[in-house]
């Protein structure tokens, strides 16, 4: 008889191993799916995981694109991981991302067409503040009235989407856009544009910010008392309270940090790769980042790697569509498998398999 037995301590080996195992299982089962679709499975897997990095024709373009695609995911996931460590579930990063983009873009467009080196930093600040303020709504409601932050933050995503639709048609609409919705394009407003710092590398300010956030969070969690308090709150809430950690403070801190990073990510995206505020500017980064956070084991360096891996499946998935004519939905399914197998193999972190009869203790 096979049964699961809880480990006394989560296994360190399995904590590191499960993401790799999940990727491997995804390749195998995903390959089977591609084969069922009548496409060469090995070639498809190679295109997804290898070609964006090493294909002679595409790699020069897609390698920098990995950074561009991964940076908002990493930035948001880092912010979320803090809260997730403390047992605070901010599901509405998508909304905070949108509000950051609106506030930051609004700040930049307010100065159009003047030029000053201060405009872009002000936009970053406004973006982070916008995301922070949006995250403060579920935070304050939770602290004051004990509302559920999962529901409130998630519902606020839809409010943010409605606001996005409104500003792209009214407040921030490009006056020279012939009545079409959408703001001015920041690519045509250099003073406020988030351009590549080194041409051809994909390295824009959002990528820099993502790396800084990774390092900062790593230090915070391992070296700083607040990091300890956050972990304590998540792992042993009662112990945290006894040792004088204020739950309200942790809630405000974690949601605020997550919101600010998501907001900043929104600003970097709107002023850089996206270029403009449009009705459907947001493309689900706030939700994908949740996957990235867990795939990276809520660890800053893990999140960095997970973000890059996720970006690889996006870009490789696009190449596979282009070169093999794979349906778009099969790529989404492929990405879904990754999370599914991660959660499934995660069981081994906390449990071990016992074969044989139960011993009576």
């Amino acid at each position, binding site marked *: 008889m096979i049964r699961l037995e809880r480990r006394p301590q989560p296994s360190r080996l399995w904590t590191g191993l499960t993401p790799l195992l999940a990727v491997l299982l995804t390749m195998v089962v995903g390959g089977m799916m591609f084969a069922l679709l009548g496409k060469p499975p090995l070639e498809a897997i190679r295109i997804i995981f290898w070609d964006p990095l090493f294909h002679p*024709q595409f790699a020069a373009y897609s390698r920098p694109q990995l950074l561009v695609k991964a940076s908002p995911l990493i930035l948001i996931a880092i912010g979320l991981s803090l809260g997730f460590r403390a047992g605070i579930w901010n599901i509405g990063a998508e909304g905070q991302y949108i509000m950051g983009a609106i506030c930051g873009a609004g700040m930049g467009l307010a100065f159009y067409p003047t030029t000053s080196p201060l405009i872009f930093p002000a936009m970053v600040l406004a973006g982070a503040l916008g995301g922070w303020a949006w995250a403060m709504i579920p935070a304050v409601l939770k602290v004051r009235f004990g509302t559920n932050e999962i529901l409130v933050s998630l519902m606020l995503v839809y409010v943010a989407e409605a606001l996005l639709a409104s500003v792209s*048609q009214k407040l921030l609409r490009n006056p020279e856009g012939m009545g079409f919705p959408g703001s001015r394009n920041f690519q045509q407003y250099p003073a406020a544009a988030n351009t590549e710092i080194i041409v051809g590398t994909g390295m824009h300010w959002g990528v820099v910010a993502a790396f800084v956030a990774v390092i900062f969070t790593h230090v915070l969690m391992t070296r700083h008392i607040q990091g300890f308090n956050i972990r304590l709150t998540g792992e042993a809430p009662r112990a945290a309270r006894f040792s004088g950690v204020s739950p309200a403070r942790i809630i405000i801190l974690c949601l605020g940090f997550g919101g600010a990073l998501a907001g900043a990510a929104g600003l970097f995206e709107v002023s850089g790769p996206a270029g403009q505020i449009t009705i*459907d500017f947001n493309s689900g980064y706030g939700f994908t980042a949740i996957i990235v956070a867990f795939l990276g084991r809520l660890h800053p360096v893990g999140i960095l790697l997970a973000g890059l891996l996720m970006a690889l499946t996006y870009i490789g998935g696009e190449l596979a569509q282009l070169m093999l004519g794979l349906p778009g939905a099969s790529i989404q399914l492929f990405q879904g498998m990754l999370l599914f197998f991660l959660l499934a193999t995660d069981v081994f972190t906390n449990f071990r398999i016992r074969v044989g009869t139960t011993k009576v203790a």
Partner: protein
Amino acid sequence: MNRRTLLSTVAAATLVTATLGTPAAAQDDPVKVGFIYVGPIGDGGWTYEHNKARLAVEEHFGDKVETVYQESVPEGADAERAITQMALSGADLIFTTSFGYMDPTVNVAAKFPDVKFEHATGFKRADNVAVYSARFYEGRAIQGHIAGKMTETNKIGYIASFPIPEVIRGINSAYIHAKKANPDVEFSIIWAYTWFDPAKESDAARALIENGADVILQHTDSTAPQAAAQEAGDVITFGQASDMAEYAPMPRVSSIIDDWAPYYIQRVEAVIDGTWESTDTWDGIGPGMVGIGEISDAVPEDVKAEALALKDSIANGEYHPFTGPLNKQDGTVWLAEGETAPDGDLLGMDFYVEGLSGDIPN
């Protein structure tokens, strides 16, 4: 491996032709035509029709072309990457088939001066970027006429997508002709803020039907409103972008069909011949870019005959759906008696005509 070498030879060939300045036709290699789609190819509406036209291109040219596509490409940062990768893969001509691809298309086109781009429904052109769209409002006039004749509650529901000139034109054209057919009609308009979202579209259709509408017009691409109308029973609908014939004869009584195939074939031909130029195309029923799906038996003979007569008069240019006297919603004069709307007014249309209630969300 085979494919890889093939791709690089195509790319090399493009490079060579570019430097020599000879048309791609001089090569034996097939012309590679790419398509960027905003929805899934199985959406049954907008993207479905673009993909059908892609298949028509393949069929028409056979070995002379190779086509590639990418579906469900989000408008925004991802679009620019998708278009760039397509250009890198050696495409000679790329159709970007949604309004939101406008800036990305122009950006990528600047980086690939030897690749030709065609952007649907936009207004920004360059030496290697052409734009094309269809005069869907001509089809809306025929829908409006049938709707006005068929409604018994005098309430017509309209599921609108985004408040852009294209959609507003459709509403105005349908309303003007419904009102002509039946002076008592009222329009209620729901803004869905999506091109394709079956759940949202279905909710919108149900809400309109509950409020007494017995005709549903839609400017969104899924068949969800058709299904909602079928469930409700005595409600008629019109296929949008595609024929949606699976819902005929009821609730779908007719449709507007986007037929991109003749245009795509003509443009690919131009690339093969080396005569491609950046152009601005806005065609309607006459040249066949807008088709009217078969009017089903649920429509009485006389109404059907009137609708077909209207279609013919639009097709041969005798009649313009926006012919004065027409006032704007606030009562100011837009078009005097007998005057027809200039294209400029239509392209930037941001107002309702007199008689429509409610505001354009702004």
